[in-house]
């Protein structure tokens, strides 16, 4: 007996699908695969106790039986009365006996017949499915019976078997039974030998049989009997004690009870649902499900992945609300390791020991001090230190410094310098040292300007408080402006903050030390605080040079000529003299300064501006002469130095600037006396000169102020009258001192100063100046400003607001960048005018950018024409390439057309339309349109396009020339900013303005990467855009519009393509 049986819960991944039964079965032929036609039959309804041999005998009448499978109950081992008989191809009675045939015959002939007393039902069963179905049904029934019987606890085994046999569904109970003789004795198992033969062909169906078997396990669940076992196991799955506390560091995901109800049955589904993730365990307790993962980095990642992908995902009708804990139980606290406890303890011990030792040390120290307490000792110690410092200081100041000074004296190294061709260092040193002797405090100690001329925060009380001033735009602007203001208002400049000592050079330190040693007066100190650097911007007044009376000792230490300033040597070569200067100096200008008399030299120096080369040369000459003279003085009459000085002083007064301005009484008494002397001594000639200069100044002022505004001059005039009230006089920093080498202006006017109100206030220093200014403006009509003070203040306000600075400036406070004033004052009062492209190019930022780039290129080309040649070559090569391109295009095109024609002949006519329609579309490339830098919109490649490839067709309405002309006018009137008309043939124009493809967005470029070709497709001309070069993704597509300049057109269309050989205009 073949009691082979299959376990029912065998897992299989195959999907069980019932075959559609309304389909007729395929005929089996040589092409069919699979098991082929049925070779076995299932027999039910016979007496289960019929031996297998009987069965076999019965069935072997229809063919040679390969095997008989009589199914037994797996639990009881009893036969179920269901058998599967398999036939095989055989040879019998000299006839071919086909297995399929045999099976069919068996079904047809034996079906409904009796075997023994029972009527049997025989069915062909190709894959044994039916057989299996029967077995299952029988088994189920048997099980039910058994369960019932167990409950009734009357369960004799044979009865069960009997019931089982009757319980088999297929045969009716009252069915007549087959011949009893056949069922009387169980058949002997067939020998294994013959069975082994058909094993080969059977192997296939056997394997396949597994396929449907697997899935059956799944539907089994709800069927009742089989799940009984899992349920028992399942209820055990719900753990009693909370899992959370048992999870330590393992990453896990918690699905709370609230989102998916706790049911053990869900577990396998959950497992299946999460099979894509590498979980370790799925556990559940009353709070919900815990899916634990591997305790490693990978596990954590997996946890996270699972969470991110499955959170809120569906599980049946529930939503898995997950809670991801990739670092395990968040409440889990690891107990501290013993090593760590040990380490902490040791640390504490060490700390305590150190503390203790410290305290002990302290005690000992205290004791020692108490023992050794002696005030005299301490005082001596102090004194010793003090004495040492004092001695060291004295050595420094009394011995070292004079020696250093002597050795550093530039006069001593004159020969050496001359040999090496070095400049006189007095030039540089002067800035620092001259001040040492400058008795006149030329800067008020507290002026409202910082040294670089920025307005200090407290110096602009009139401006509104600006909390944002430090950040953002404003701040940047101020910084940018700073250099421009370096020249601003020298008189108001504040002395530089005293620089830190260590940052100074050694030389400076020496001076400082020297200065400190002496009981110098305050002024010297103030002048010393000056920074050396800031002198560059401020022309040194002659008075501050070296004519200051000084102490006798210092003369010996530092000869005065050392601090003389020599002007910069590198001046521009060309010299154009002012008309006034020519008038004044006339003949002198033709001579070499060396040939001039000293007087003449002085005149020249005084008249010419400092920037003048000639004046410079004269000054140098004068300086040299004076130096020689002074050297003589020094060496010849040493004893009478004081007298000499006075003589010098008087001399200087005579020479001293004609432009000495009066200063308020901030001067000390001695100064006042000197000033008086100076005033008296002004010669008639000097006054005349001064007059001249002022007039010139006024003229200049007029010239300067004219462009500002027409009213400004008049305003200035008006303002002058009121000026004194407004002006803050205390701010002047005129150097009240004398020069002895050459005449210098006391006040160097900055000629670049813009003569706005601040400028005028800066220029006019005293009543005298004011009088001259008044005279200069006498003929100007006064402008009515109601209150001069307010007016002046307002003007200053406006200036401060717009320039960000206060005080005199050297650049016009105006509107930056492009600005054309409107004749009526503002844009809105002006009315609407057509703005030409030319004008627009001056202010539209993009156009300016493109234009600038073009100009730069042109300048570069001018600079080295080689580049031009190169560019020409490139363009020539391009052209060559493009002609080649067009040729190859044509070839390609012809080929394509031929191809299409050929195809057309072969295909039906309706396809022909489609082809014609598509043949251009087929080859087009991916493009998109977007805003373009060249003009409005542009077309961009969305894929790489090779050279010569077709890109897109220019599609639009085809119109005649006349229509196109009309439309053009209309479009222009409507203000359609772009031209979308494309001339195809002489009288065929494609208008893509209103109806057209996106090819119309392609812009013009003088260096295009595309070209438009007119090709004939099907006899109709089409405009097609081809690539001239290889075009990369996102490159803008351009072609040359080749516009012609129309006659009578006033406005040229500027080209903004920005290419290297841009012509600048489209037409």
């Amino acid at each position: 007996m073949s009691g082979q049986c299959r376990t029912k819960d065998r897992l299989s991944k195959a999907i069980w699908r019932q075959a559609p039964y309304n389909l007729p079965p395929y005929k089996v032929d040589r092409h069919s695969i699979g098991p082929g036609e049925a070779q076995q039959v299932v027999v039910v309804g016979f007496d289960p106790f019929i031996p297998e041999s009987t069965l076999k005998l019965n069935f072997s009448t229809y063919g040679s039986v390969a095997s008989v499978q009589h199914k037994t109950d797996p639990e009881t081992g009893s036969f179920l009365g269901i058998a599967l008989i398999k036939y095989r191809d055989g040879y019998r009675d000299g006839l071919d006996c086909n297995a399929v045939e045999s099976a069919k015959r068996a079904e047809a002939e034996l079906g409904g017949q009796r075997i023994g007393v029972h009527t049997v039902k025989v069915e062909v069963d190709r894959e044994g499915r039916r057989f299996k179905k029967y077995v299952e049904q029988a088994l189920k029934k048997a099980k039910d019976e058994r369960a019932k019987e167990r409950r009734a606890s009357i369960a004799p085994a044979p009865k069960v078997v009997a019931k089982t046999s009757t319980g088999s569904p297929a045969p009716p109970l009252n069915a007549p039974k087959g011949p009893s003789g056949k069922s009387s004795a169980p058949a002997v198992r067939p020998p294994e030998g013959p069975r082994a033969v058909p094993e080969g062909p059977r192997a296939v169906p056997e394997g396949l049989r597994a396929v449907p078997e697997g899935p059956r396990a799944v539907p089994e669940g709800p069927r009742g009997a089989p799940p009984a076992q899992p349920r028992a196991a399942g209820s055990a799955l719900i753990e009693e004690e909370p899992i959370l506390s048992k999870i330590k560091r393992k990453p896990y995901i918690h699905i709370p009870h609230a989102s998916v109800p706790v049911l053990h049955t869900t577990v396998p589904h959950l497992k299946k649902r999460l099979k894509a993730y590498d979980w370790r365990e799925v556990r559940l307790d009353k709070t919900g499900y815990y899916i634990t993962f591997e305790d490693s980095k990978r596990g954590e990642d997996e946890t996270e992945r699972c969470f991110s992908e499955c959170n809120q995902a569906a599980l049946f009708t529930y939503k898995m609300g997950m809670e991801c804990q990739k670092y395990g139980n968040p409440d889990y606290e690891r107990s501290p390791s013993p090593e760590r406890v040990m380490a902490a303890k040791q640390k504490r011990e060490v700390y305590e020991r150190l503390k203790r030792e410290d305290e002990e040390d302290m005690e000992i120290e205290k004791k020692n001090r108490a023992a050794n307490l002696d005030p005299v000792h301490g005082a001596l110690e102090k004194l010793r230190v003090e004495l040492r410092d004092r001695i060291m200081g004295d050595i420094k100041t009394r011995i070292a410094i004079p020696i250093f000074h002597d050795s550093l004296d530039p006069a001593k190294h004159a020969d050496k310098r001359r040999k090496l061709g070095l400049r006189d260092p007095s030039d540089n040193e002067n800035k620092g040292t001259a001040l040492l002797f400058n008795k006149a405090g030329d800067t008020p100690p507290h002026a409202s300007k910082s040294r670089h001329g920025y307005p200090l925060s407290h110096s602009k009380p009139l401006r509104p408080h600006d909390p944002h001033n430090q950040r953002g735009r404003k701040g940047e602007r101020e910084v940018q402006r700073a250099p421009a203001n370096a020249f601003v208002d020298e008189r108001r400049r504040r002395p530089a903050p005293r620089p830190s000592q260590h940052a100074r050079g050694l030389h400076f330190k020496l001076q400082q030390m020297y200065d400190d040693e002496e009981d110098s007066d305050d002024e010297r100190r103030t002048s010393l605080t000056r920074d050396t650097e800031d002198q560059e911007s401020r022309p040194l007044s002659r008075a501050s040079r070296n004519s200051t009376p000084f102490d006798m000792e210092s003369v010996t230490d530092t000869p005065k000529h050392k601090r003389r300033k020599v002007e910069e040597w590198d001046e521009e070569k060309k010299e154009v003299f002012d008309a006034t200067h020519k008038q004044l100096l006339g003949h002198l200008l033709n001579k070499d300064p060396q040939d001039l008399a000293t007087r003449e030299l002085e005149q020249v120096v005084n008249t010419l501006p400092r920037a003048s080369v000639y004046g410079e040369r004269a000054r140098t000459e004068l300086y040299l002469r004076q130096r020689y003279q002074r050297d003589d003085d020094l060496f010849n009459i040493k004893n009478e130095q004081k007298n000499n000085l006075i003589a010098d002083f008087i001399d200087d007064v005579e020479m001293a600037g004609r432009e000495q301005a009066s200063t308020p009484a901030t001067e000390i008494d001695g100064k006042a006396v000197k000033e008086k002397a100076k005033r008296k001594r002004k010669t008639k000639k000097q006054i005349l000169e001064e007059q001249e200069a002022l007039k010139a100044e006024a003229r200049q002022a007029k010239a300067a102020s004219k462009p500002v505004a027409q009213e400004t001059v008049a305003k200035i005039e008006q303002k002058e009258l009121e000026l004194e009230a407004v002006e803050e006089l205390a701010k002047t920093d005129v150097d009240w001192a004398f020069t002895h080498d050459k005449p210098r202006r006391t006040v160097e006017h900055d000629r670049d100063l813009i003569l706005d109100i601040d400028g005028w206030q800066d220029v006019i220093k005293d009543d005298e100046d004011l009088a001259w200014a008044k005279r200069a403006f006498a003929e100007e009509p006064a402008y009515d400003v109601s209150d001069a003070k307010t007016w002046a203040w307002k003007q200053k306000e406006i200036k401060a607001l717009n320039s960000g600075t206060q005080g005199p400036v050297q650049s016009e406070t105006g509107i930056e960048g492009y600005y054309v004033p409107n004749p009526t004052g503002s844009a809105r009062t002006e009315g609407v005018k057509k703005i030409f492209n030319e004008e627009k190019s001056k202010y539209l930022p993009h156009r300016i950018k493109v234009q600038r780039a073009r100009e730069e290129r042109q300048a570069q080309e001018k600079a080295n024409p080689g580049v031009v040649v190169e560019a020409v070559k490139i363009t020539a090569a391009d052209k060559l390439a493009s002609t080649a391109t067009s040729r190859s295009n044509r070839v390609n095109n012809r080929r394509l057309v031929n191809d299409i024609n050929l195809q057309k002949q072969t295909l039906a006519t309706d396809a022909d339309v489609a082809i014609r329609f598509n043949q251009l579309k087929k080859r087009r490339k991916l493009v998109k349109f977007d805003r373009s830098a060249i003009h409005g919109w542009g077309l961009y490649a969305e894929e790489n396009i090779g050279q010569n490839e077709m890109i897109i067709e220019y599609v639009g309405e085809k119109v005649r020339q006349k229509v196109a002309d009309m439309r053009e006018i209309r479009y222009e009137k409507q203000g359609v900013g772009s031209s979308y008309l494309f001339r195809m043939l002489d009288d065929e124009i494609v208008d893509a303005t209103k109806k057209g493809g996106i090819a119309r967005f392609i812009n013009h470029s003088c260096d295009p990467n595309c070209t438009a070709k007119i090709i004939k497709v099907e006899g109709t001309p089409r405009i097609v855009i081809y690539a001239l070069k290889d075009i990369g993704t996102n490159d803008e597509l351009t072609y040359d519009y080749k516009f012609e300049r129309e006659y009578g057109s006033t406005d040229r269309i500027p080209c903004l393509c920005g290419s290297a050989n841009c012509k600048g205009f489209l037409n």
Partner: protein
Amino acid sequence: MTTSNLDPPRSPKRKRSSSPNGIPQYDGADDGAALQYGYDEEMPSELQSPVEDDTPAKRQRLERPRRLNYVPHLTLRGHKRGVAAVKFSPDGRWIASCSADATIKIWDATSGTLSRTLEGHLAGISTIAWSPDSKVLASGSDDKIIRLWDISTGKPLPNPLIGHHNYVYSLAFSPKGNMIVSGSYDEAVFLWDVRTARPMRSLPAHSDPVSGVDFVRDGTLIASCSSDGLIRIWDTSTTQCLKTLVHEDNAAVTSVRFSPNGKYVLACTLDSCLRLWNYVDGRCVKTYQGHKNEKYSINAAFGAYTAEVGLAEFEGEEQERWAFVVGGSEDGRAVLWDVSSKEVLQELEAHEGVVLGVDVAPDTTIATCGLDKTIRIWKRQPLPLETNGTHGAEVVVPIMAPLVDDSTPVNGTPVGAQDDG
């Protein structure tokens, strides 16, 4: 974007045909009285939203006046050059005027006394805009700078808005006061953040000077117009161009304004027309004519009027209000049109020369300014008794436009334009 503002109103044409007697009458809330002041918070809600037609009896109790009688109230002198714009502050207390003499003057609206003169611009000022809280005034000048002025101190706020490349031509404050939109001769529309004084967005808007900009009442839309003839509607948040309005003639547009209810834009064009556009449909709804505007960038404004002057105060109940449009003219007049009927309500002989700016205060006072350097304030008075109710024999205000059926357009212009946008 609020879609509620974009509800397409019923077609005005259909409504017109529903008035059989040919007398233009109040025809629907959305065209007439709904053009209320969007910024006015206290406005009754039924005026903002279309009212059902089931209350016609109450509605027509007071007939809409055919004439208005605005009389000159004040003349403000002080500017040295032409006055480019005049604006009432939203709270109605101040009048700001800007001039080509680079000054802004703040006047007291009631007394007409000069309160402050704001100086600081280097060139003439073309446009001004009040912040919604009436505390800050923005001014756009030919010097390319937009300055914000603190009205209480008369000082400019520290950070001017710098970024335009040519004259600033038009300005508008957002209703929240946090943004400023400006149009310039450099053809760009800039969206500024007031707090940081930085441009937030630059809208590549036009191909000619941007002559007008405006915010819709909730600030979600921006309208801009340009001499290139386009009116564009922008989404403030995305700065996408939502709609472009073009008239067939393509005349230069010189001013654009949202209606107080935010459903229409009013545009002045240099073909001597004022057009009311339904920007949702892209359709020109009304065309107002009768003035001359061929060269100058002239403003227009919306206002509301009631049947009787000052009646509301006495009765204590809200009167029915109709909307009018007022625009300047180059022949020195300022013309008032009824919004829905398009008839001329009054012509003010305002200035010598061009009337550049007009504005209507919340209390319906009108201010005009012009190239003659003066500003005039107009107050409404009851119609003179002898002319009240009759047509023709009006002394103060001559009426030019005849009263005609609405379906036949005034002055023979196409109305309710057929253009397809």
